[in-house]
Each structure stands twice: as C-alpha cells, then as structure tokens.
C-alpha cells in the first residue's frame, strides 16, 4: 500500500473507530484517562506499522486489542511504581454490558459521560471533541483560539472530576434521557456554530473542520438514537445550513446574506438529505408528536432551501414556524429572528417596532444591531442606521460578517 493510501486509510479508520476504542477501554478499565492514553498509543502504533505491513483484516479489533494491551502495561507499571498490587479492574459500573444493538453501543455511554451536566459547558465541548471525536488537544485549542495548556487542563480537570465525584459511565435512565440528550445536542450545536460563525480576527470565517465534526457526531447519535426527534431535527438543521456554506462567503471573504446567495452553489445532496429528515419529522408531527426547537429550526431552513430564489420564499410559513418556536421558547433571540420574517410580510416599519422592544435584553448582541441597521437602512433613516452598523461591527467577532457590515455601512448615503 502506498504511504498516502495508508495515511488516508488510517484517517478513515481513526474517524470510524476512535470513539469505539475509547469507549470499550473506558468500560473495561473504568478510567477515561487510561482509555484516552491507550487509544492514542494504539493509533500511534497503527501509524507506524500499517503503511509497511498493510491494514489488518479487522482494524477496529486490532486497535482495541492493542490499546487494551497498552492499558494493562500502564496499570502494571503504575502498580509496580506504587509498590502495591491493585485490581486491574477499576470499574465502578454495576450495569452488565448491554445487549448488542444500538442502545447498547458503548459509544453512547462515552458521549453521555462527556456531556454530563455537572461539567462546565467548555469542559463538555473539549471532552467530547477529544474523547468522542478524537481531535487532539492542539486541534481543539486551535479551533477555539485558546492556549493548548488551557485545553489540556480543562480536559484533565474534567476527567479528575468524573473519577472523584463518580460521574457514572452509563446511558441515563429513560426518565432522565430527554433532558440529557438535549444536553448532548447543545454541545454538538455549540461545536457546529463555532465552525459556522468562527470568532476571532485570525481565523477563517468558516471552520469547515468543526462543522464537519459536529455533523459526523450528530450522525453518530442519530444512528444510536434513531427514534429521537430532536436528534433528527438537529442533524437536518446542520445539513441545511452546511449546504449553503460555500455560497455564504464571497471570494474576498465577505459574508453573503441568504437573500443574495447564489442558490446554484448550494449543495443539492445535503439539501435533499436535510429535506428528507424534515419530512420524517413532519410525518411524526402529523401523528401527534410535538416537535422540539431543533425540528422547528430545521423546518424553517427547509422553507428557505425550497425557494427557487429569495423572492419565492414562503415568508408566512417562516413566520408561522417562528410563532411555534416562540411558544416553545419565548427568548428574545427568537423574537429577533421572527421580526426578520415580519419585515418581509408587513414591512420594515412594523418589524423595527418589534426589534426595538428587545433593546433591554439584546443590547450586547451584535445581530440585534445588525438587524436594526438593515431595517433603518430600508426605511431611509441613514444616520440611525449608520450608528446601528457601528455598534454591530464593534460587537461582531466573525471576520466575514464584519466585512459585510462595514461595506453596508459605507454604502449608506
């Protein structure tokens, strides 16, 4: 096998098998630290051996066996150093291995543990990217523009808490499952959003690696929990946003708003898949299952991606979906997005009145000022519009968005 071919094969195996190997070891040794280190060593051994010897017939099995040996070696070394004979099995897991099948998949335990509500949101994101997605500490640090040492410390501290406080390594009970799944989805959406609207002056405006990773993990969760409507909804939402990724930033690095994008540049395959998932949830909704926020957001994106051009957008459908969303989650951010639909249906004057009512809660949120600036511009209030653009530019963190807002402001007469 060529070196490049082996490299691609190892990357593929890494994506497919990393979480499985970590999960199997975490289960066997009851220690995430050992699981992570041994999995990393096993993949390092694969990188060393596979290019020359070729891939083993069962790469996943080879990796798990190799990692298990590395873990046992480490435990023996540590026991020898400590001068005590300790049980190799440190598991505090009173649940027998589940039956083979989706819900019994070891990776689910891993995901739920990494996204445990007793961990900080930053720690959940870092742990999930490290232990489930298999990103290195350096990659996570680069993605979130923080020091490598800070990410390393965050992960170490979280693993220590899981161990000391005995955060259980299991899939939550049916009773707790909806709330815990929602916690997992929050982490995945955070990762996706950071990729989609990357912050910071030195980064690409869109981090395709992060959006791809978030989609990959959400696909995994959907494979594990196919009946969960919100998981399906979040996957559909991500796919429909991802489909527009390349059309969303101009060659000069400026954000192109939805209404001005070249729709022929959208990814038709991703849109078709997203629409299929939305239809699946619409059928469930018709059968009486109330949709959650991700399903409604996905439906809104389905309306946008169905329109042949911006003028063909069914805004009354968009507004109806935002009304439904606002009943579920009366947050000012949803009210702001709803106002954008109102502007299309009832005109910018009515929308501006709705937006202005949000000032006390959204004054520090740049989309609030960007939306106001746009409405004021359409109403011909140049001076107020300019002030709103200034405020939006000051608060925005994404380079493409700043470039777009700046051009709009400078075009005001």
């Amino acid at each position, binding site marked *: 096998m060529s070196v490049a071919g082996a490299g691609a094969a190892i990357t593929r195996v890494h994506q497919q098998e990393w979480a499985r190997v970590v999960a199997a070891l975490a289960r066997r040794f009851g220690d995430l630290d050992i699981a992570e280190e041994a999995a990393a060593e096993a993949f390092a051994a694969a990188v060393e051996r596979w290019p020359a010897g070729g891939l083993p017939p069962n790469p996943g099995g080879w990796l798990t066996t190799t990692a298990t040996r590395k873990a046992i070696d480490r435990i023996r070394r540590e026991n020898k150093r400590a001068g005590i004979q300790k049980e190799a099995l440190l598991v505090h897991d009173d649940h027998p291995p589940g039956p083979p099948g989706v819900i019994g998949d070891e990776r689910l335990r891993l995901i739920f543990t990494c996204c445990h509500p007793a961990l900080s949101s930053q720690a959940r994101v870092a742990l999930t990217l490290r232990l489930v997605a298999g990103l290195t500490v350096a990659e996570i640090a680069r993605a979130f523009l923080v020091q490598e040492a800070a990410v390393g410390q965050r992960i170490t501290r979280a693993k220590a808490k899981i161990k000391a*406080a*005995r*955060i259980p390594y299991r899939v939550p009970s049916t009773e707790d499952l909806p709330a815990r799944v929602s916690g997992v989805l929050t982490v995945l959406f955070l990762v996706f959003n950071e990729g989609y609207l990357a912050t910071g002056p030195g980064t690409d405006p869109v981090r395709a690696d992060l959006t791809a990773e978030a989609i990959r993990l959400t696909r995994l969760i959907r494979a594990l929990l196919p009946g969960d409507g919100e998981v399906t909804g979040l996957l559909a939402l991500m796919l429909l946003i991802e489909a527009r990724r390349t059309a969303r930033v101009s060659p000069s690095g400026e954000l192109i708003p939805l209404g001005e994008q070249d729709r022929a540049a959208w990814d038709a395959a991703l849109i078709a898949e997203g629409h299929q998932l939305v239809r699946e949830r619409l059928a469930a909704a018709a059968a009486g299952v109330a949709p959650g926020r991700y399903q409604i957001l996905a439906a809104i994106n389905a309306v946008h991606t169905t329109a042949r051009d911006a003028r063909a957008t069914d805004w009354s459908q968009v507004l109806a979906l935002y009304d439904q969303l606002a009943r579920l989650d009366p947050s000012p951010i949803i009210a702001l997005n709803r106002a954008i639909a109102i502007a299309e249906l009832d005109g910018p004057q009515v929308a501006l009145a709705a937006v202005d009512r949000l000032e006390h809660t959204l004054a520090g949120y740049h989309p609030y000022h960007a939306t106001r600036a746009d409405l004021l511009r359409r109403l011909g209030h140049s001076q107020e519009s300019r002030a709103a653009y200034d405020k939006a530019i000051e608060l925005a963190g994404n380079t493409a968005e700043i470039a777009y807002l700046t051009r709009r402001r400078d075009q005001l007469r």
Partner: protein
Amino acid sequence: MQYLVSVIDDTAGLATPDEEAAIDAFNDRLQAEGHWVFAGGLAAPSTATVIDNRGGEALFTDGPFVESKEYLAGFWVLEAADLDAALKLAAEGSKACNRKVEVRPFL
C-alpha cells in the same frame, strides 16, 4: 460513596416552620431509603472561632475563617451510588430547605 451536601445561605433568617417541616420529611425519606449518614444545621457564622495550633501555641480568633456574603448554614452527608443519584437527592434537599446547595464527594 458518600457526598457532602452543603447548604448555602445568604440571609440571616433561620428556617421557617414550613421549611423545617419539609426538611424533616426529606430526612425521614433519606433514612427510609438508606441514604442518610448525618445532617445538621449550624449556628450563625458570627458564632465561629478559628483555632491555629500549627505553631506550638494554640491561637484562638473570633469569627469565621472567611467573611463572605454566602455562608455554610448546614449540611447533609449522604450515601449515594454515584453523582447522578447524589445530584437528584441534593435537588430535593435544596427544594426542602429552600436554599442553594453544593454537592462534593468525599475522598
């Protein structure tokens, strides 16, 4: 596995009769279900004395070791299988005593 559930207070008031009744009911349940190890309410921080006998001669200082708006008003020591079980009990404890609580594992 044992957990310390600390009751965090920022008011000067003691528990009201309603709160006391809810705490009693919660304690009965803890005992009936085998989670109970120990629990107690504490007098005001102003009644504390700090002792330092590291230097050979014991020094006594009036007042709590740290002055803060929030203080420890009482605690439970609970037996629970894991953090999920402890967090569930602590959430009920918080409701019963109508105060914030903090969960911390024993070593």
